[in-house]
């Protein structure tokens, strides 16, 4: 601790990822607004021929916002905050810093490959694991490099005890490594076919029900270890740092961490309720989903209580606004998820728009808000400049919050309406609606959702402009601010 005053942190790799987070954020959310609009106005499917249909673009949207925007945000915050909580600079090891650059370059190559291959329709078709085997291999390399850098920094650390954020980054690293490897077990066909067929094609190691189980063990836990665990790492570092408050309870963070680790993995089965996987597994998925409220709310409450006695900051500092609302959305989302995981509710909710609604109150309200706040906080330190515009941040906050609310409320109504119509019967027990009736009825909700998404995208552009101006034209700072980020 005592030597920290002399330590000059090296943010060069962190900065690179900060820029890619902004760029992928714009790209991914623009595609998102386009595909949301396509559902309301199908003519929009024909803008780019074969490459512009909803079906082709949908995985591109999810992959760019997950692996582009979110993962960039995770890497940026890691390369920024790991040095600081471990009290060691990336600059102290040429090797680690070099590996950091290498990791970034490989990441860019993989991301480009991902975008191109998905536009072309080259896909393994498993949700959030669409990339074919050559890209999977590249991703394993990127991930291993990250592990080497993480444990390299840990090996060099001056602060002996790992801070809470580091627990979560370690868990993110291990969890994704395990899940990604097992879910992407696939056999490249070119090795067996005697030179026939495409070299990049592969076939899954698992079939049918087993494939579904492994996929949703992954799919659900990609949410756990990409959208939850590292984002908790981010809030545990940036909220106390920005507010100048100590974390409310160490014991609560301990309980939430180990609770989350143990419980989360069990809950994957809730994606397969009423399917052909065994009943006991479905019930386990349901039960553990409900238990999951405890560790989730534990973290969120711990963060909210960290603001105890300092709630005035909520009105004064837009970054605190983003983070406090993010933890609130985290609570909403982690209550909504377990409700949907109850078998009787799931019978109505599954396959409907309530599911994307649920996903988006989590990712727009929690994940992206945290990343925005962290990026701005880091910008003042990494670029040694004041935040360009406070009022722009405030405006962004309200526009995006309105967007999220429009998004999930419309999708709640759409989902429940459709779920009820699918099962509605007349007095003789015959189905009341043909399928297309249940599609036509959704038009107004799809329109509202597209508007909500558009508002959020507008906020994203405001953020990008604000970030760019902060990095290039913000008032210069003599030294790193300690707590609250200065803004004009």
């Amino acid at each position, binding site marked *: 601790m005592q030597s920290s005053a002399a330590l000059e942190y090296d943010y060069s790799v962190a900065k690179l990822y900060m820029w890619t987070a902004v760029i992928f954020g714009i790209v991914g959310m623009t595609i998102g607004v386009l595909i949301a609009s396509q559902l309301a106005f199908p003519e929009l499917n024909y803008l780019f021929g074969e490459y512009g249909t909803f079906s082709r673009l949908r995985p591109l949207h999810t992959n760019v916002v997950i692996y582009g925007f979110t993962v960039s945000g995770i890497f940026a915050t890691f390369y920024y905050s790991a040095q600081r909580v471990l009290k060691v600079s990336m600059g102290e090891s040429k090797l680690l810093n070099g590996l950091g650059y290498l990791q970034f370059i490989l990441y860019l190559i993989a991301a480009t490959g991902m975008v191109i291959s998905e536009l072309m329709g080259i896909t393994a078709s498993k949700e959030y694991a669409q990339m074919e085997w050559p890209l999977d291999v590249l991703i394993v390399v990127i991930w291993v490099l990250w592990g080497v850098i993480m444990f390299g920094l840990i090996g060099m650390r001056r602060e002996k005890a790992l801070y809470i954020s580091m627990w979560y980054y370690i868990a993110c690293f291990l969890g994704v490594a395990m899940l990604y490897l097992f879910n992407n077990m696939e056999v490249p066909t070119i090795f067996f076919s005697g030179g026939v067929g495409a070299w990049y094609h592969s076939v899954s190691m698992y079939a049918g029900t087993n494939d579904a189980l492994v996929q949703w063990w992954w799919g659900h836990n990609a949410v756990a270890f990409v959208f939850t665990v590292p984002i908790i790492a981010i809030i545990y570092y940036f909220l106390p740092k920005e507010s100048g408050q100590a974390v409310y309870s160490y014991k609560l963070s301990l309980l939430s961490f180990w609770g989350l680790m143990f419980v989360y993995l069990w809950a994957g089965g809730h994606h397969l309720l009423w399917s052909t996987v065994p009943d006991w597994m479905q019930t386990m998925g349901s039960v553990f989903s409900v238990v999951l409220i405890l560790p989730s709310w534990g973290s969120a409450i711990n963060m909210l209580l960290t603001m105890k006695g300092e709630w005035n900051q909520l009105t004064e500092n837009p970054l605190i606004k983003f983070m406090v609302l993010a933890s609130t959305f985290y609570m909403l989302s982690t209550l909504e998820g377990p409700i949907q995981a109850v078998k009787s509710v799931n019978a109505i909710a599954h*396959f409907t728009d309530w599911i994307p609604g649920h996903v988006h109150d989590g990712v727009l309200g929690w994940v992206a808000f945290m990343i925005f706040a962290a990026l701005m906080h880091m910008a003042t330190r990494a670029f040694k400049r004041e935040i360009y515009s406070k009022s722009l941040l405030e405006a962004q906050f309200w526009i995006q919050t309105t967007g999220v609310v429009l998004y999930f409320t419309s999708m709640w109504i759409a989902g429940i309406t459709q779920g009820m119509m699918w099962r509605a019967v007349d007095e003789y027990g015959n189905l009341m609606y043909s399928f297309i009736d249940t599609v036509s009825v959704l038009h107004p909700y799809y329109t509202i959702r597209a508007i909500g998404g558009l508002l959020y995208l507008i906020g994203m552009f405001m953020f990008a402009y604000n970030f760019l101006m902060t990095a290039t034209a913000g008032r210069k700072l003599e030294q790193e601010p300690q707590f609250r980020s200065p803004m004009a």
Partner: protein
Amino acid sequence: MFHWLEKNPFLFSVGVFIVIAFAGLVEILPNFAEASRPIKGLKPYTVLQLAGKEVYKKDNCIACHSQLIRPFKSETDRYGKYSLSGEYAYDRPFLWGSKRTGPDLHRVGNYRTPDWHANHMWNPKSVVPDSIMPAYKHQFKNVADLATAYAEAVTVKKVFNTPYGDEIQPGKAAFEKYYKTIALPEAMKIAKAMKNKDVLAMVQQGKIPEVVALVAYLERLK
């Protein structure tokens, strides 16, 4: 309380790994062998059907269509018998989907015909006026990748013992023989049933458009 653990990154990481790996073992392993078994009489996909499955993946039908009929009366009334685990034994990957913007397709072969599909893929509104599904006209021009589908059949036969006959062998010569003697005639049957002149003309020239493979696959879903 746990401070000692937080000072030992190695033990800490081992602890985390055990705690997270546990659930996967308990949930996935016990049923693995049982869930791999096909129902009686299930045949593996023909190469043309596999090529159709690749079109289904390429144009990502899974974004809006499920292949999983849940055991509710409202679903069995609408789509047919509820889905059984063994029906999916040759599905690599599984294509259950997670969203029904359009209807379920697990038994679509029971109640739609090739010419209905031909009209629908060319212009969905021609058969379902309020449809919000995009038209997939490019499937009528693009040639289906039978070679890759064949490679997949060879691979699953070798690696997973999927019960294909002797007609599936590695190598280009074997593929070409298969293409001429088995795949093309199969495609011709589908093309004739689709009642679309351009499609038929293409198959007569020895080229199989994507839509023919796709319809072969959809016809198989029963």
